[in-house]
């Protein structure tokens, strides 16, 4: 005999809301970090933070669809910021490597010109 679970739906809803809360915390923190660490991050991160404003009350008041929409938009912005940061990081790595490798050569040229 299979017993019906009266509270299965409520439990599922609670679980969904808890997951949304946790995702909200993660993406909002990522948006703040984007603000500080990404080129143009102040614009992208700030917009992401503004977009995700009021996420907690939306979830708690049962407006999960609205919360998911905000979270999706915030996530796209943060991932866009992360892409820009990755490109900037790759360019920096290449530039710094070239600078480090050319350092002895540049010093030699400086010496020939009568520098230090």
């Amino acid at each position, binding site marked *: 005999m299979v017993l019906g679970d009266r509270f299965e739906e409520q439990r599922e809803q609670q679980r969904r809301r808890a997951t949304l809360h*946790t995702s909200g915390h993660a993406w909002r*923190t990522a948006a703040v970090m984007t603000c500080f660490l990404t080129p143009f991050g102040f614009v992208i991160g700030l917009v992401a933070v503004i977009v995700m404003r009021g996420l907690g009350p939306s979830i*708690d008041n049962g407006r999960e669809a609205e919360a998911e929409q905000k979270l999706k938009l915030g996530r796209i912005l943060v991932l866009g910021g992360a892409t820009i940061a990755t490109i900037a990081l790759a360019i920096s*790595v290449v530039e710094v490597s070239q600078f480090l490798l050319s350092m002895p050569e540049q010093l030699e040229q400086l010496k020939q010109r009568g520098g230090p």
Partner: protein
Amino acid sequence: MIRFEVAPIRPRVATVVAVVWIYVGVCWLLTGLFMLLGGLQLVRIAGSAEWLGFAPAFAVGIVVSGAMGLRGAFGLLRLKERGRALVEWANWLSFAGFILFTLTFCNGFARTIGYFGSSEFDPSRAILPFFMGSSFAVPFLIMARKLRSQEVRYAVRDTEMRGDY
């Protein structure tokens, strides 16, 4: 409309610290590696490592704490005890590193060489650099303390016992 306040799956502090360390870990790992490579190149050119002072030790500290924090952050997101411990250690190491760096810098900055070659320590010159350096260390102390909280430890224990995530 009925208002239910639902607790998040993962404690908020664990999520925030893990995400912060993903960003900081990547930045520090790359910065430290390039500081070390740059130092090696400079040593090769100058022929001596003496003048670098404590900079290589600082770079190694940055690389180690960055790697520990980054590795631990992914574990902490899955609420693993190993991840929590790694991030906590990365925080303590960063705190100690920043304080040591600040004290060493303050010692050099506040010391003035007299006319006859004797050096004097002027504490008033060290106050501002000390507070500026310490302000970088304090967030790591707060994060380390928060990771030791009952809330995070209980969540980690509960997840490991249930075996989910």
